[in-house]
């Protein structure tokens, strides 16, 4: 399998876990969003996890409960990715958050109640192509449903912008 993500599709990081019905305002508050990206990056997620902006490391995982990223359509996945988040796992995602993540090339998997097997700070290894998830802290394995091909292509391209650019001949309105 050709792979453009991680090490043969594997990425690994520590877990930052939030609860159910976490809305995008609390991840990327309006008051910081409109101060510009640099200021937002200093405050992203702090309403939920005060340590998050200072301590998150590249490749870490954002893990949520049901209806993750509900409410406003602001592109919270874009900013989580920019902050270093490598993948998102949740019980269920809000539709807008889910599609924003795909379109930013940020892998996101809905794993239902299996998310209960993941705790704050756990080390998680995840394969973006196969949906295999290993909790290295608890040694528990989880299986997420892999993406259909056409979604995988967008994720693999790094988001919809890159995807369109790499398929420019199909877009007659682009010079």
């Amino acid at each position, binding site marked *: 399998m050709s792979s453009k993500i991680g090490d043969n599709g594997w990425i690994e990081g520590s877990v930052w876990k939030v609860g159910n019905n976490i809305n995008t305002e*609390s991840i990327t508050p309006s008051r910081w969003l409109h101060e510009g990206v640099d200021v937002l990056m200093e405050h992203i997620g702090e309403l939920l996890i005060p340590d998050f902006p200072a301590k998150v490391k590249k490749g870490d995982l954002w893990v949520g409960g049901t209806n993750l990223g509900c409410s406003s*359509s602001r592109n919270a996945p874009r900013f989580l990715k920019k902050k270093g988040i490598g993948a998102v796992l949740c019980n269920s995602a809000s539709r807008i958050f889910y599609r924003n993540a795909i379109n930013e090339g940020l892998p996101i998997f809905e794993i239902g109640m299996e998310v209960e097997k993941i705790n704050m700070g756990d080390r998680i290894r995840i394969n973006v192509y196969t949906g295999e998830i290993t909790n290295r802290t608890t040694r528990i394995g989880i299986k997420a449903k892999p993406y259909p091909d056409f979604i995988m292509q967008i994720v693999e391209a790094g988001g919809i912008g890159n995807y369109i650019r790499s398929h*420019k001949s199909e877009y007659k*309105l682009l010079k």
Partner: protein
Amino acid sequence: MPFTAVEKILMQHSVDKLDTVSPGDFVTANIDYVGFHEGNDALVFKMFEEAGELAGVWDRDKVGMFLSHHFCTGLSDEFAANQKIAREWAARLGIRIFDFGTGICHILIMEEGLAYPGALCLFADSHATAYGAVGAMSTTAGTEMVQVLLKGHLWFKVPTTHKYTIEGKARKGVYPRDVVQHIVREVGLDASVYSAIEWDGSYIHSLPVPLRFPFSLMSVELGAKCSFIEPDKITLDYIDRRVKAPYEVVKTDPDARFEKTYHFDISDLEPQVCAPSSPDNTKPLSETLGVKIDQVCIGTCTGGSIDDLREAAKILKGRRVKARTLIIPATREANLQCAAEGLLQIFVESGCDLYPPFCGTCQTLCVGHLAPGEVQIHPGPRNWQGRTAEGSYSYLASPATCAATAIEGHIADPRKYLQEVKE
């Protein structure tokens, strides 16, 4: 095979001309109208620049840019510069622009007849579920709007459908805004994640179209992908002078399958107030009476229609407000109607301040900023932390409850003022 209205709309718009779909299927579908506002369009335009010179959009008549959604005025040099870019792009691409003063995008799309029965619409904002009020299927798109602008279609997952039936006649002082937040509390914010919500029942079909917006628009507060209210005579009268495109009313088949069904009888419901800081933290008004309020906003997408403003004016007429009170009609049409009916006079005489149409203080992005420790009440859809300054709080209530609260300076019951109104 029976289908829901949303399934039929997706089939009718499918690029592959599908004659059957099931929940969970992926469908690529042609779009009838797309819009974006000042909050998300900056990202879209940035992507255009990154992706190369754009030669045009797939159909300029099916695209609109709405600058008067979150803001009613410029805020900074940078903001003004972004607005200038947006206006220049609109001119270059030949797409219609709805500039400052026009009002809230979702309401405008229905007022302008851009969403209509059977249409498939997208907007780069979460409350795009609103156009179900006129029998359209509408939902949100983010940066993938670039794909839509270039090709006119997008992929969808066919949603399951949940049916919410609301029966009964509301008591005096109880409005759709009360009913919808009661329902959000009853079923929860994740009751209908990724599903279509079909609103039905004698209560829904008794309402004028603008008072159906709280249900269709706040469907997203229940997690829904889109909403649908079957067009009836009231709908067709509303859209008659507005819609120019040919359309055909789409209805759910009588034996179509719903994944979940909810039934409510709201005959005994009292006014409801949603307390800080989540749209499901709703309580009966009686439990919140007396909470001190610093600022009242009467307006927003779920409280700024002419029907809403008339109710507020009934209560405010001949009285003075104690809290600072902002009147913000949802659109210019609502504003003009207020002027024609003498409501603006009532508002100013009662000590309220008039603002041009836009979102209002549901997020304090350009007016009505709160200091830490201050509390506001408004009829908008959301009161999450992060939408106003840290340490400030928002209650949500009907425009009538907001008006009574403005008069007393603390959360108050609108019914005592309505008793005195001769209708």
